[in-house]
């Protein structure tokens, strides 16, 4: 018995070593972000509205019946770049008539409500993803992140990070226009 106990550390070290050996595979890039969700239907989800505001919640069904391409923006009140991006999104909606849906990611409803009251609310619908579960389904790598979903509810484009620079804005517009073209 005692022999087995004292042999345990060596055994654990060997097993760990096996994992490390596997991990050293030169083709493996631990920093790679999985490029999930492009050209796939939106994941099934149904999020309630953010408590304390009028805007309705967001579900996968809502995204399937839009009839035109929409933007889905993942945001949070604690996210500094979201604040900077907000102005751009608002202009998209007000000047260009783009339809914007929001997923409020891991955010306290009060904070989110304050944030929207403070900056304005350009979102048509906002789902409150309190525990981040839906964020996982969308395979987001951080906040903010924005998706273009076409008329049939298929994710066609993903932008990681804030849409601020003119190039980024052009990229998103181009993706929206491309999604409008009938197949």
């Amino acid at each position, binding site marked *: 018995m*005692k*022999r087995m106990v*004292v*042999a345990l*550390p*060596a055994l654990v*070290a*060997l097993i*760990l*070593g096996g*994992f*490390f*050996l*596997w*991990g*050293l*595979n*030169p083709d*493996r890039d*631990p*920093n*790679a*972000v*999985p490029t999930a969700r492009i050209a796939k239907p939106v994941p099934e989800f149904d999020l309630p509205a953010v408590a304390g505001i009028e805007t309705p919640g967001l579900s996968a069904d809502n995204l399937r019946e839009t009839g035109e391409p929409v933007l889905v923006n993942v945001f949070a009140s604690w996210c*500094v770049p979201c*604040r*900077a*991006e907000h*102005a*751009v999104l*608002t*202009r998209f909606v007000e000047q260009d008539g783009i339809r914007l849906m929001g997923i409020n990611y891991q955010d306290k409803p009060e904070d989110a409500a304050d944030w929207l009251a403070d900056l304005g609310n350009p979102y048509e619908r906002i789902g409150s993803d309190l525990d981040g579960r839906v964020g996982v389904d969308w395979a987001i790598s951080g906040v903010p992140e924005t998706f273009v979903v076409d008329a049939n509810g298929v994710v066609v484009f993903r932008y990681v990070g*804030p849409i*601020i*620079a003119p190039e980024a804005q052009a990229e998103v517009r181009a993706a929206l226009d491309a999604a409008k073209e009938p197949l």
Partner: protein
Amino acid sequence: MIPESGHFALVLALAVALVQSVLPILGARTGRALLMESARTTALLQMILVGIAFASLVRSFVVSDFTVRNVLENSHSLKPMIFKVAGSWGSHEGSLLLWTLILVVFGAGVALLGGNIPAALKARTLSVQAWISAGFLTFMLFTSNPFERVFPPPLDGQDLNPLLQDIGLAMHPPLLYFGYVGFSIVFSFAVAALIEGRVDPAWARWVRPWALAAWISLTAGIALGSWWAYYELGWGGWWFWDPVENVSFMPWLLGTALLHSAIVTEKRDTFKSWTILLAILTFSLSLLGTFIVRSGLLTSVHAFAVDPERGLYILGLLGVTIVGSLTLYAWRAPQLEPGGLFRPISREAGLLINNLLLATATATVLFGTLYPLFVEALADEKVSVGPPYFNTTFIPFMLPLVIMMGIGPFLSWKRADLPGVWQRLRWVLAIALGVGLVVWYLQTDGPLLAVISLAIAAWVFAASLREWALRIKMFDAPLPESLRRARNLPRAAHGMTLAHIGIAVLILGFVGSTAWKEERIIFAEPGTRVEIAGFEVVFEGIERVQGPNYIAQQGQLRVLKNGAELTWLRPERRSYPVAGSTTTESAIRTTLAGDLYVTIGEPAADKASGKWTVRILYEPFVTWIWIGAVMLILGGALSMSDRRLRVGVPKRARRGPAPQPAE
């Protein structure tokens, strides 16, 4: 010429290390004193040769010799001198050379200072140490030569990562390595003891100063790293549970367990097998840290350039060292004599609980750090393990540990008298509960865990002081008597009190800066005012500032309290044209009550032109984290200076007292 001589010195050092790997241990086996003594010369020679190599590299950096690839990639002629020097350990190759230098310095330290260690144990220890240095020297010479030349030499260097161009970070790796590598000596002692098949109190006492030295450096290294992250990364956090932080934290946790278990081996001749295992595992985790940082195995903010060949070599090195020593352990540990017995309520039992908690906490950190790798290997999915996991698994082990820390010193060896302990601690308990209630009353909206943690911190603080006061009979005896007792108290006892109080202070800092942090993020234009934690902060605008190798946009913020001007805070965004990157320089107003912490971000886009994103944080008590760390370091240093570690070492052979000449 200089780089070549450095390279040559490394080759010579390898040859010397190979000699030292064999001769002394052979001498110990066959009882030949000359062979055992050779370790003294070879250890010294190794130190000199690696020292020459390191000096050559530093010189190449100082004179900006861009024919050396390492200098070219990690330096620039415009860089301030101190960062040129620090650049020599900023890269993978350079830091490896520093690592090896510290390794051989510790080896030479044992050879020169370990006069009281028996010749055979010393010879075996130094041979084991030479195995490690031979491993790292071959690693360096075969895969990571720091002296490689480039032809044709370019005109100027490619700069050092500007984030790393900071005095705190320049000093961080050397201290951390001192800690990591310091545990190599403890490891060598443990392996030598296993080969010898003998562990006794004297062994524990010889090991103690080396373990303490390593632990002190590691504490300082971690504290410095966390301080750097706090003021340089601009997020206002001081610990992120990043893999690279974790791998330095795990040897610290286990090293702390080792320090405590070695006390039991020293005082009570028991816990032997466990102490040996801890010594092996602590160094194994240090090696693991070196491996993870250099292999690109995990995603992290600060890793070296990835090279699979290097990763493979160092994994092989790791395998031989760790699996080899643990196999030796599995083979020899059952033969170690069991030591003294103890009751379930005793100092031994208290330290056993301490060790179990620390070891379990280490295991949870290890598991969390490697979990993404496991999942990716077994399920081909990417996950990341963040602070929520570590906070929920780690803190539940730490709180009981800290409670035990208050009780432990009151327990006597072998069998403790619980009613007596209660007698002495009930006022301490009352104080702790009182502090908890007061905090609860003042901060009703804060998390409950924060209140509990502060009560526990008060508990440890008061209990440690009470124990110290009892030892010197403060208030029970006249003051001169107490002072005399304080003078006569072993320094290790003072050290323990100081370090335990340091933990209480650390907790105050942790809790204050996480639970009661205030944060404002604003879009500021000149004249914007913000209220935070009783301060009024006015954003007055941005100025351009020219630095030695960067251009900065400096925010001008006026801080007022009760309408009176207190100070100006000037956070910066620096762009380094050569490196082509930008960094954030936070501006901090530090007081013992809390830090006012300001950073500026990108100019806000579009509609908000002319506005800046300004982030203002108020972190109560955050400075106490570093004060607590300094107390830990001083406590360790006091304990290390205990004269019992230098003189009056018990004789190894168990014979009676030496006959005294009649007077």
